[in-house]
């Protein structure tokens, strides 16, 4: 008899003369008599049809079992790779795939399908491997090889896509031919052939002799077109191949004998998965992948330096997505894996600096120097000293780096910034100018120069400097912000508003322009407060439901609002930040945010109050913190010692209380409407008051600078 089999439909149709019977897996294994009209319904839309001629019922049953195992294995692999499914389901899929793969020929059959197309972009290979680890060696091996061969699979697939339609026919014909090639394992064979770097002739002969392939129209032409790109490639000059190997060697620091390419691909996939988890703010998943990556890069007695390099790369990625805790964790792990790796210490010192652990950052930077990172280590040490407000030492440290490495643009810019912090504005300007002459593309130096010019009240030059940066880098938020501030100082308020509008229109997704933005995708201007309030409530709701984006946004606001206190509270910083987060969750959970101000302002206040409470409890609070929430609180007396040391405080001490309160509210990010509500004055009156206060402040500053020059 003949049989028509589909694993997808789970049925084998047996044709014996005019009689049709169906055979099913599970339950009753006896064939059921069918009418010919039922054939279509039994097969549904299954596409894995297999025709067998002259087979017995037992053979058909065996083929059906194999076809079903093939389909089941493929489905289980897809389940394993799907990060949207629950851990339980994926774990179960790993166990069942392992059982299925024990069956004869199942692995090859599954690979026939899986090697026909690269994995979709949303696949989670690292997660799949994690669920397989330990308990599913066959599945682990299949998946590992599948991931390793992705680039080859993509190559083979691309070559398939290039087979001209003229050779195959319609899209439906192409699909049919491809299905046959997949079923006959030609895609898999081609991938393995490419991996072994063998000539295509053997493959071609074997494919041409395949009986199923021979049934296809134009099969010779199709096969010839398919292998053509690989034929050309294998004929490339030897020196090109050798050069490619050298390049690969530079990127893959493993011994050739240790299946270098395989490991390299796995590491790249693993790192990509970790970055994906970071972007999804899934800390648990990121940590678990990192652990698997370390295992991968340290197994077989490999030098842990490679794992350290990966961890340092990932620490930078963590920093770029604002996951400072993870940045710290990764870089610290790197230092533990290989204690004398200088670059790991540089990364660790940088992470400690970012996290505000300044006392620990200094010895870490010194360790980096000891282990040989003279340039980067000394630069980071100088940065730490500057953050610790030990400006004299920072300046000396920068001078030392620049002496040894005159081309170190970071150190030279850092030196200029330090001079600015020391109020040595003329020297700072000269330092910035020198950096700009040598590195005209360095935007931070150009912004720094503009800022110094602004501080020196050379407003026209400052404006020109910022505009120069904006011309070269239209998306530079620092420059746009700086320009707006200069315009404000010049009292050109109409232009400030125009600049706001322009920025909001041009960069709707920019998270930070002038503190106007609320959430990515929810751009609002300070003048659309009603709408902003609705959006804020949405953000709160999303936050309370654990939405990753809302959590990330609110957390970044908390971090920014808390940032001014970081240095003063560095010894208890983590506890303070944790308490602040808990307080925010508590207040938002209790519905305390009623939309009377913007959410960002509200959070700013909550965070400021928490930090000030902490400072008060330590007796370290000063008016210069600019954060007292009490509207009527008189300015605390400024001590003579402070006056001598900090001219800015002296200046602030001479500003009338009314203006101090206005500055404080502006610093907290309030809009004019919010400020007028809080102070009980009309918005127009408030604007006039702000202008007058600004004039007073500018005059005082002028006096201050004049006094210093004397």
């Amino acid at each position: 008899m003949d049989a028509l089999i589909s694993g997808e439909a789970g049925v084998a149709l047996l044709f014996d003369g005019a009689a049709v019977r169906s055979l099913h897996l599970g339950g009753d294994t006896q064939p059921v008599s069918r009418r010919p009209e039922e054939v279509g319904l039994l097969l549904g839309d299954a596409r894995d049809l297999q025709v067998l001629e002259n087979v017995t019922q037992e053979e058909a049953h065996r083929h059906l079992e194999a076809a079903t195992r093939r389909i089941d294995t493929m489905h289980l692999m897809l389940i394993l790779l799907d990060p949207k499914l629950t851990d339980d389901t994926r774990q179960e899929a790993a166990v069942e795939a392992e059982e299925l793969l024990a069956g004869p020929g199942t692995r090859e059959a599954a690979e026939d399908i899986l090697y026909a197309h690269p994995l979709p972009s949303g696949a989670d290979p690292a997660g799949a491997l994690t669920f397989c680890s330990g308990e599913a060696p066959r599945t682990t091996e299949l998946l590992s090889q599948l991931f390793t061969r992705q680039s080859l699979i993509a190559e083979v697939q691309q070559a398939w896509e290039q087979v001209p339609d003229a050779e195959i026919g319609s899209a439906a014909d192409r699909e049919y031919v491809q299905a046959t090639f997949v079923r006959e394992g030609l895609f898999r064979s081609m991938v393995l052939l490419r991996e072994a770097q063998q000539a295509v002739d053997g493959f071609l002969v074997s494919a041409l002799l395949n009986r199923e392939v021979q049934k296809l129209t134009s099969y010779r032409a199709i096969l010839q077109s398919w292998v053509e790109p690989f034929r050309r490639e294998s004929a490339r000059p030897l020196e090109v191949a050798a050069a490619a190997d050298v390049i690969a060697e530079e990127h893959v620091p493993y011994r050739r004998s240790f299946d270098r390419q395989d490991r390299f691909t796995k590491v790249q996939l693993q790192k990509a998965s970790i970055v994906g988890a970071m972007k999804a703010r899934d800390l648990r998943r990121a940590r678990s992948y990192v652990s698997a990556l370390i295992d991968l890069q340290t197994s077989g007695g490999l030098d842990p330096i490679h794992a350290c390099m990966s961890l340092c790369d990932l620490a930078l990625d963590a920093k770029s997505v604002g996951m400072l805790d993870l940045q710290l964790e990764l870089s610290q792990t790197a230092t533990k894996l290989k204690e004398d790796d200088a670059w790991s210490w540089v990364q660790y010192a940088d992470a400690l600096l970012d996290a505000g652990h300044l006392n620990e950052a200094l010895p870490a930077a010194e360790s980096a120097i000891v282990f040989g990172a003279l340039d980067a280590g000394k630069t980071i040490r100088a940065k730490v000293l500057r953050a610790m407000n030990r400006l004299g030492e920072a300046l000396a440290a920068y001078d030392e780096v620049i002496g040894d490495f005159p081309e170190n643009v970071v150190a030279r810019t850092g030196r200029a910034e330090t001079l600015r912090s020391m109020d040595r504005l003329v020297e700072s300007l000269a330092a910035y100018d020198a950096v700009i002459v040598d590195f005209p593309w360095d935007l931070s130096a150009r912004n720094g120069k503009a800022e110094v010019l602004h501080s020196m009240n050379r407003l026209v030059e400052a404006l020109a400097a910022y505009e120069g940066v904006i011309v070269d880098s239209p998306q530079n938020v620092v420059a746009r912000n700086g320009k707006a501030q200069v315009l404000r100082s010049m009292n050109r308020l109409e232009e400030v508003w125009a600049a706001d509008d322009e920025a909001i229109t041009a960069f709707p997704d920019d998270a930070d322009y002038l503190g106007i933005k609320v959430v990515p995708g929810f751009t609002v201007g300070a003048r659309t407060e009603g709408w902003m309030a609705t959006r804020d409530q949405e953000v709160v709701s999303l936050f309370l439901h654990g939405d990753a984006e809302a959590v990330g946004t609110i957390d970044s606001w908390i971090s920014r609002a808390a940032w001014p206190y970081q240095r003063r509270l560095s010894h208890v910083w983590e506890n303070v930040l944790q308490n602040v987060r808990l307080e925010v969750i508590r207040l938002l959970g209790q519905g305390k945010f009623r939309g009377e101000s913007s959410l960002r302002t509200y959070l700013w206040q909550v965070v400021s109050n928490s930090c000030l409470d902490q400072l008060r409890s330590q007796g370290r609070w000063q008016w210069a913190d600019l954060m007292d929430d009490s509207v009527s609180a008189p300015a605390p007396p400024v001590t003579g010692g402070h006056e001598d040391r900090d001219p800015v405080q002296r200046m602030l001490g001479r500003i009338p209380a009314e203006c101090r309160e206005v500055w404080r509210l502006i610093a907290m990010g309030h809009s004019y409407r919010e400020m007028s509500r809080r102070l009980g004055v009309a918005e127009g009156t408030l604007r006039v008051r702000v202008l007058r206060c600004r004039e007073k402040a500018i005059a005082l500053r002028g006096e201050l600078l004049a006094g210093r020059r004397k």
Partner: protein
Amino acid sequence: MRTESCEFCGNPVPASATWCPHCGRPGLFPNVRAAETVAERNALAERYSLSVEAAAVRGCAEVLRSFEDSACSSKAVIARPLAQTEQLTCSDDQLYSTYYKLIEAEVRLPSGDKWDVLRRVADAILFPGYEKEIRFAALSMDGIGASTYGECSLVLRDSMIAHRASVFEGNSAWLLKQWRYDLTSGFRATWEQRSMLCVAKLAAQLQAEATPEDFAEILLCPGPIAEEGRFVEVHILRGLTRRSLEKVMIASPPRGGRPGSTRLKALRDRLAEAGVAFEVS
């Protein structure tokens, strides 16, 4: 060509148009409009009255009322194989396509059997000019669809289809062939009037001793082949995604063994992501 007035601009619109050719406003559902015509409504009302009267004479008035109540809350259900259900539910981007569109996109070949011809002729008569946009389902009281077409029953959300669905006496391809392609009025209804059509069609099959548990099988009884199946056909204009579903039910798992159960778990996870319930009975 029959025309109606656009409810927005007042200009005449062909009855089969899915948007107004004059003002371009969308939202017209020609299958629903065809079921709403005076001739259709009157003919259906007449069939309904005759059925109710006949049931009363047989002493089945009470059970018929109960049946009508159940039919009022019946659902549109599509039965498909597990593999297709998995594909539809794997993301919001997957559309439940029509036979014609699949062929047009060269994703599948025409089946080439007699149904291919019957279906094309019937569709051209019932849905002139918009046959490629119609998705088919069956009315069900217990959420289980015509299992001949697949083991998974996709129960559609009323709110997603009520405005664009109409119902028909039975398998339209088969019935129109039986009627020699002479489409008479009174055999289709709007979604809201589906219970009237159910009564008109099935009152004669109700016995006085029938219980509500029997109703589901009276309304939908899939035969081994399409001609022998009994169901009220639902016609839905335009696309469906997993978000159009209220529930997916599987009467019996497709195959014994654990792989089947893991696939079902994965299906459950994917449905949960879209807020769709899942039930294996």
